[in-house]
């Protein structure tokens, strides 16, 4: 049965974008259900409606039926448990917030079990007054809280593989998460210490077993860097830096040093192992770029995606996330015909700077194989690049800062698979 108000799609292969969603006039292809109207002696009860349910609790947990929604894959360096990464299951989430228990992890020497009463933050180096702060002192400072993304520089690194790996959304893109980060602007603490005129960088150390260290330009520190204490309303999770971490909005995650212990103001960067031998970008000509801090404009369709099967033709939501280290998302476009035509997706209300934005479109899927993809534009006008554009000039295997367009191939059986286009 069709609705008299049917509209044509906004782009090829049955794609409806924001114009159609705003009109509210999407036509579904499914028949209306009709209910028979027998009178029963008593309305029917499911078994869980037959007795009072379970009690309240001091702290909740997801339904046991959601047990499959976990960080996965988890991959450790050989011979270690705690060094490696776990990934956010983007394909199982909606909205923009990553539940704290599912925030991705990337550790270089495991998660330290820090006693907050014995932890100090030291601010020293080229300052007038070296200072130390304990956790509860910091908690009394003026704070800001912002919903922002955190992305590992190595996220999506497998996209440099010569052949498209047969992996799901989490495995490819799961080193990105969104939290409300709350903490003290580091500028306030540095002003209290008094930065010397020659102080142009800070060296940030963590209190993990690797004493992991990154150098950060003082401009970023004084701009929007915070010492984060809160993550989604409560104190940081241990795996995300408890009791405090550096948070650098929009910048590669490694530089947002977890378990922050020391901020040393210097005239030059320290050239730590992480910022030189790792987290540097090797080009095809053998030269390498240091201090490539901001994460580029990026998007990915999280549904449909590998593991989320489309069982039959019909209307499906095409949904995903877009983000940029430069600022807000301006626009996301979706294609369901392999990139031949595009429609502008609807963006959810929270279009926030240096935060992920949820985009949505509707697809009248006819059951035929298709290739779907999204591309984002941020408010500086930067356009998400294709894989070919990203790879241009890079050394093979140079896998940091991959923000290429992701294409999923939908098979005749309705299963999605990673492909290169």
């Amino acid at each position, binding site marked *: 049965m069709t609705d008299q108000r049917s509209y044509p799609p906004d782009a090829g292969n049955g794609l409806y974008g924001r114009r159609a969603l705003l009109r509210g006039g999407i036509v579904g292809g499914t028949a209306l259900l009709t209910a028979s109207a027998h009178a029963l002696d008593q309305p029917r009860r499911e078994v869980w409606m037959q007795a009072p349910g379970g009690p309240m609790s001091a702290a909740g947990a997801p339904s046991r039926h959601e047990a499959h929604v976990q960080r996965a894959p988890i991959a450790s360096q050989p011979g270690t448990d705690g060094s490696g990464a776990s990934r956010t299951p983007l394909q199982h989430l909606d909205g923009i917030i990553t539940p704290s228990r599912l925030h991705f992890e990337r550790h270089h020497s495991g998660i330290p079990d820090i006693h907050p009463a014995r932890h100090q933050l030291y601010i020293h180096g080229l300052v007038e007054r070296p200072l130390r702060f304990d956790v509860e002192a910091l908690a009394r400072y003026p704070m800001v809280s912002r919903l922002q993304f955190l992305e590992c520089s190595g996220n999506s690194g497998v996209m440099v593989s010569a052949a498209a790996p047969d992996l799901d959304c989490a495995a490819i893109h799961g080193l990105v998460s969104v939290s409300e980060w709350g903490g003290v602007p580091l500028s306030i*603490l540095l002003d209290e210490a008094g930065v010397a005129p020659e102080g142009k960088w800070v060296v940030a150390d963590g209190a993990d077993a690797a004493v992991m260290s990154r150098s950060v330009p003082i401009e970023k520190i004084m701009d929007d860097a915070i010492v984060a204490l809160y993550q989604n309303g409560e104190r940081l999770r241990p795996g995300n830096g408890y009791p405090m971490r550096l948070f650098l909005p929009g910048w590669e995650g490694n530089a947002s040093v977890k378990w922050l212990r020391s901020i040393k103001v210097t005239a030059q960067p320290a*050239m730590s*192992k992480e910022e030189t031998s790792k987290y540097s970008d090797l080009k095809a000509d053998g*030269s390498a770029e240091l201090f*490539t*801090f901001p994460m580029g404009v990026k998007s990915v369709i999280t549904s449909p995606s590998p593991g989320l099967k489309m069982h039959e033709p019909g209307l499906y939501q095409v949904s995903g996330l877009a983000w940029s280290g430069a600022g807000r998302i301006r626009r996301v476009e979706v294609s369901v015909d392999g990139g031949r035509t595009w429609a502008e997706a609807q963006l959810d209300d929270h279009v926030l700077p240096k935060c992920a934005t949820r985009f949505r479109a509707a697809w009248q899927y006819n059951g035929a194989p298709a290739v779907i993809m999204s591309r984002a534009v941020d408010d500086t006008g930067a356009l998400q*690049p294709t894989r070919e554009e990203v790879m241009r000039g890079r050394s093979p295997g140079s896998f940091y800062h991959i923000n290429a367009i992701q294409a999923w191939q939908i098979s005749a059986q309705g299963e999605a698979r990673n492909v290169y286009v």
Partner: protein
Amino acid sequence: MFMSRDPRPRPNFGRAIGSGLLVAVLMVVNDVQARSPGLGQPVTATELAAIDFTVMPDGAGLPVGSGTAEQGVAIYQRHCLACHGDKGVDGVNDRLSGGHDSLSTLAPVKTVGSYWPYATTVFDFIRRAMPYTAPGSLGNDDIYALTAYLLYINDVVGEQDVMDARSLPEVNMPNRDNFVWAAGVD
């Protein structure tokens, strides 16, 4: 980082309105800073020395001590070989030696000798983080000796060259000049 431009650019009216708001916001922020509780505690130089791991490329932060590759080989075999392999190759974790002249090929191999720009970083990183299972267990002489050994197996220093606070920053790493800083960073 590759950058491409929006094929549908549009004018920004918000910036004109925003600048007026910015003045007001700056006044509020300054007011907030004036209300900072000022709870930082003073720290002595001794306390800071106890928490300062940083070694700078010019050698600042390097401690007293010294070592040679000849002294370092036994330390390497005891503490490092299990993960990093004999002479830094064929281990289960990061390769430490070799790969010279490979960076512009289709199979680049990044090691201490082929890629790292500063020898001081070797000392800095070992002192912070290695051996993986017992960081902080090595004395400074042993760290200098290990540093010398890693440089030696990469043909950067001789087997009996003494590495210490004066000589280590002088070591010229083969790949130093092939690094550029990203645009906008200085």
